[in-house]
């Protein structure tokens, strides 16, 4: 785990430093800019989906799904971050405790 932690950390720092060091012409192109803006969107959406349904290489519907749906409702209601994640945890744990979901 340490090599991953260190290499990924140094790599993320190198990206930050590159922005401060590289000539603007290299990075400051509309296409590069758009892709950099869209990457977090695509990756975060994928992470939501995989962390909700994925279990290794299988797809399952369990207590995580109602938890995430509840979190989405909290977001629509403009709840702060801690409330959003707490709602997800409480709903999932509650359904499991009540035996209503795996």
């Amino acid at each position, binding site marked *: 785990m340490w090599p991953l932690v260190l290499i*990924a950390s140094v790599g993320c720092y190198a990206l930050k430093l590159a922005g*401060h060091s590289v000539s603007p012409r290299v990075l400051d192109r509309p296409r590069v800019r758009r892709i950099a*803006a869209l990457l977090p969107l*695509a990756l975060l*959406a994928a992470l939501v989906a995989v962390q909700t349904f994925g279990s290794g290489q299988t797809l399952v519907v369990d207590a995580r799904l109602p938890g995430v749906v509840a979190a989405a409702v909290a977001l629509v209601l403009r709840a702060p971050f801690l409330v959003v*994640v707490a*709602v997800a945890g409480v709903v999932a*744990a509650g359904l499991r405790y009540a035996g209503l979901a795996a």
Partner: protein
Amino acid sequence: MTSDWPAERRAIIRDATGVGIAVAAYGVVFGAQGVATGLSLAQTMTLSLLMFTGASQFALVGVVGAGGTGVAAALTALMLGARNALYGLRMAPLLGVTGAKRLLAAQWTIDESTAMALAREDHTNERAVRTAFWATGGSVYVFWNLSTLLGGLGAKALGDPRTLGLDAVIPAAFLALLWPRIRGREPWAIAVLSAAVAVLLTPVLRPGLPVLATALVAIIAGMWARNTLAPLASAPIHPEESVHDEGDATPRGGSA
């Protein structure tokens, strides 16, 4: 704006402190997730101290927790961190620092510090831009790391993550990070498409790779889409509704 600089300076530092406190909420969750996923407290803290870019940290832990390879986890973190390079590009001429200060400025170049600095770019007083950057970067760095420590220590005291619903907290945290970015039709389409691609690929590819594959969705969309994204400078500052570190071309001053 040079007339009442001390008052403006105080206001900037007050705002920066507020952003730091808002970020701490995410830090606690990250610290808890890191330790619950199986990273040691030292490894979790190293990510906050050294990587210091929230979405990448959450992603690394998420991919590891899902059983993904180290390479997939690292690549996902790096791709999420790529936007910081663009922030640096934007901030470098405004800060005008060299040597050790530039190395520190790079580390503190994140969504929040960039958003807070660019929000003051129209001021004639360039001190405001620089003060906002340094104050926000420093505040977020301190609060992010303290809260990571707190969350990590807390998670050690907890039991089975599933009993507590922590496995539902992880996608909920990603959803909260995603939420402010999906304003408008194009972002929604890309988010839904990416989620669908990741789910469809999950049974086919090794863990970690389906998420990584959706980078292609962003790349293809970025190559072809019209330039409908907001410019880097349009940065509304509402720490209470912003999100940890995920910037994009429109940082909004939320969390690390």
